[in-house]
């Protein structure tokens, strides 16, 4: 398999078709990330297209040897954030209404294991976009708070708080579901 840098060199020599290989390598990851951010397939597909068009147009300025995926990821995150800021007409839950955590009693691990995936996804849908972004970067890309802060341009403390509150919101939902069942 050709290294990313060799493919990029070919593309810059005018062989546009070589870009297909790069897309095939990374489009799944970009889609997964975009879907985690946006929660809608159509939107995520649009972002994938947007991301790769930008990647292609910026290839001449790519200079981070051996770190192609982080570079693509940065572009993808920017595209997702632009998409969120420009296309979200639906009013989401206000950040201040997300539980800060003290009201969640400690619960056993079994409660979370019983929680249906669909319920988790539904609960994530109700979270503010910024919380979804933090969750997606943490759990899909396994980034640390500092790395997430670098990518999104927000303070580390803000990212920490969002992650913590998002988890607590999900934990509270698990407890409520468990009580209902």
């Amino acid at each position, binding site marked *: 398999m050709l290294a990313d840098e060799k493919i990029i060199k070919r593309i810059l020599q005018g062989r546009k078709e070589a870009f297909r290989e790069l897309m095939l390598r990374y489009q799944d990851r970009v889609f997964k990330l975009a879907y985690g951010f946006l929660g809608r397939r159509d939107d995520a597909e649009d972002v*994938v297209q947007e991301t790769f068009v930008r990647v292609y147009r910026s290839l001449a300025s790519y200079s981070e040897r051996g770190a192609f995926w982080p570079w693509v990821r940065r572009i993808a995150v920017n595209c997702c954030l632009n998409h969120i800021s420009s296309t979200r007409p639906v009013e989401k839950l206000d950040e201040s209404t997300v539980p800060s955590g003290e009201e969640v009693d400690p619960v056993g691990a079994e409660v979370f294991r019983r929680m249906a995936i669909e319920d988790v996804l539904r609960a994530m849908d109700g979270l503010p976009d910024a919380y979804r972004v933090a969750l997606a970067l943490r759990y899909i890309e396994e980034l640390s708070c500092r790395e997430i802060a670098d990518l999104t341009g927000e303070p580390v403390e803000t990212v920490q708080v969002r992650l913590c509150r998002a988890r607590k919101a999900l934990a509270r939902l698990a407890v409520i579901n468990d009580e209902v069942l």
Partner: protein
Amino acid sequence: MMKCSEAVRMLEAVGCDRSPGDARRLKSHLEQCPECRERSLACDALDSRIAEALDRIPDYRDQTDAVLDELVPYSRPRKPALRWAWALAACAAAAVVVGYGLGPRPAAHRDAAKAVARKQDTEHTPAPSWVPVPAPRPNIHIRHVHHRSKAYRLPEIRRQAFVRRPKRFAGTVNPIAEAPTEIVAERQVSTGGSCLRLTIKLGHMTVTRTIHSVSVPLQPDPALANVERPPLVMTVRPRFASAIERS
């Protein structure tokens, strides 16, 4: 000995780097405190549940063709050696021409050369005011049809839809980009008409995009039949949000 509150705070700080000392203290606390141990297990279970949920993505449609269609190949860089060769050839040609011009020439030759020069002067055509450009990119995003007035119905908006000349064609003539769009098919993908899947024909290309936030009723509203409405212009910008503007 670490306090429970401190242990809880560390357990909740997901994604934060712990110093080796903190990690050691937390570990020893968890060994001694069954309540915090249970909390730690619960945190792990929640984390794995979230990760599982985010890992469950729907089928992904390959986008490579759509993206490649709208990319312009990078121009092949010229080799420096070749440039030098051209420069040398040009110098040689110039030397020959100068040498020929300095040498003795018959009068008939001079006259013929002057005639050719005059002809070239008169036949010189100015550069065209426009440059032929490739067809607009087929990947057109139509979204955010913001529409404040309820006086419009979606079919009317569609009828009046046309494609504005993209920015990059500014100053050039691009008949395809100015051609009216033709809505080939539509599919309602959400209730209440807030989200539509439209297939639009643009020149020889057909693109399908989703329109969100259409706040107009899908069915003709008889109550609006006699309402006087200003004309609408739907602007479809490649890769950018479109908007409906009153003109």
